């Protein structure tokens, strides 16, 4: 994605942001709250149409990226939270993710012809394999609402992985996970990289620093840094965005004590 601009009404949510995910790499997207990470993510999957800018995928420009076309382009995403279908079993949830791999036509599937029967079985097996790979196979017959949150997250991940995408978009996969589970997640992300590229939005710095090959940092809709984890960590602009500039803060405090308390703190 190059030169992405997004404006909601008069508010510029993203200004001239460029992100390139190299094949077989994990690309991290970080930034303080409201920096535009999720907006950029939504641009990448067609939920938000950029005001200007180009999206290129497999060397082709995507002019009208639609969410429903994502999986057929080889892109899968997980959602903030889990977004599992509540009234369907874990296995059925994952089967929906594998939907695009089914071959029987719409008509024969509707009439339950033998070809679609076989298809159905393959779909079921594929979904089961994805669950087993994430150690969630024994939850296959359960309903998502009855499972602990970390397990739900794993199921959601299985649902994205089962589509065998070339690009996996992960939206805050570590939220709500314990330290140990986060470690597992990190290893998992590294293990799928051989098969696909990953774009990762995440708050947990240590996870991002550990698993990402490259990182882009956003602040207030602008790209303030990009590079390897080490480069980004060393970048003064990044520390400033996250912690505020130390000198400025002192000056602010000094100003505040001089002013008679009337000035709102920025």
């Amino acid at each position, binding site marked *: 994605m190059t030169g992405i601009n997004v404006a909601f009404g008069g508010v510029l949510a993203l200004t001239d942001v460029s992100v390139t995910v190299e094949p077989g790499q994990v690309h991290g997207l970080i930034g303080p709250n409201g920096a535009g990470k999720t907006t950029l993510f939504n641009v990448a*999957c067609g939920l938000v149409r950029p005001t200007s800018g180009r999206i290129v995928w497999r060397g082709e420009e995507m002019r009208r990226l639609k*969410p*429903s*076309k*994502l*999986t*057929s382009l080889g892109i*899968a*995403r997980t*959602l903030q939270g889990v*977004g599992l*279908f*509540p*009234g*369907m079993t874990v296995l*059925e949830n994952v*089967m*929906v*993710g594998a*939907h*695009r791999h*089914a071959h*029987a036509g*719409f008509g024969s*599937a*509707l009439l*339950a012809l033998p070809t*679609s029967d076989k*298809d*159905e079985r393959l*779909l079921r097996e594929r979904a089961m394999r994805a669950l087993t790979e994430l150690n969630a196979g024994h939850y296959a017959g359960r309903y998502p609402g009855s499972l602990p949150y970390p397990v739900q997250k794993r199921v959601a991940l299985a*649902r994205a992985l089962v*589509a065998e995408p070339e690009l996996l978009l992960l939206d805050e996969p570590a939220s709500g996970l314990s330290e140990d589970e986060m470690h597992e997640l990190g290893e998992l992300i590294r293990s799928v990289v051989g098969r696909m590229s990953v774009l990762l939005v995440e708050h947990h710095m240590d996870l991002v620093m550990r698993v990402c090959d490259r990182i882009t940092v956003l602040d207030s809709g602008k790209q303030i840094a990009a590079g390897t984890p080490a480069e980004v960590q060393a970048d003064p602009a990044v520390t400033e965005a996250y912690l505020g500039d130390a000198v400025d803060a002192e000056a602010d405090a000094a100003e505040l004590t001089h002013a008679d308390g009337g000035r709102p703190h920025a």
Partner: protein
Amino acid sequence: MDYFVNVTLTGLTQGMIYSAFALALVLIWRSTRIVNFAQGSMAAATTFIALALIQAGQSYWVALVVALASGFILGAIVERVIIRPVEGGPELNAVIVTLGLFVAIQASIAIIFGSSFQSFPTPFGVRGLEVGDTTIPLTPTSLYIIGSVLLVMGLLVALFRFTRVGLAMRASAFSQEVARLLGVKVGGMLTLGWGLAAVVGSLSGLLIAGGSFVWPAYMDALIVFGFVAAIIGGLDSPVGAIVGGLILGLALSYVSGYAPRGSALVNISALVILIVVLLVRPGGLFSSATARRA
């Protein structure tokens, strides 16, 4: 005793028809969160198509198949052309649109087929079956009604449970956005859902018409009972719709069979049942607590 069995069987038979109609409403509610007030007149339209074919000399079965197929097409067209633009907008808009459609279709029927009373045939007799030398009050017609509704329900369950299309339809019903991200063609699923619902609705219209008179507004009573059945069941639950229909059918049959001046009390009883259910369980008998809004 014979009388009791007779009244019960009548109630079950009628209840099956209410169930089918309620199921059609529930299917549409689940997939698009719209209460389709036009369901009744859509069903009436297909019944008149069947009647026209029968009067032209075709057999009942040909007419039945054509009517159900045209129900599917009508449902799909209505969703694609008329409902799609108001989907996702304020709920009231969709309600007004389906109400308008209800009146428009009913008026079109009167224009095309005339508004006089016409008799609609039934494929089977209404004489009770004889077992040994006793006659049990189970007519071939009521067996046909119960059987065909059960068959259609069984096919729907199989579709939703065991096929990929059913899986995608359920996913779309739970969350359109998520389903879309997973590559499900949600629009197609909604059209299909409306089409299938219209088939079930048409079936209920054809069954209630059998052996009786039809006129453009003959579905009006069934609309009320179908709504009551759907709401008793919770509007969100297909099983609830079926049970709601059977409860209503039995209750109304007992009222009409046992209460003094019973047949005059039928409509009132339906509304009393509705009020009691809503007072005791506002979400309906089969809904989860949060499923239904407004």
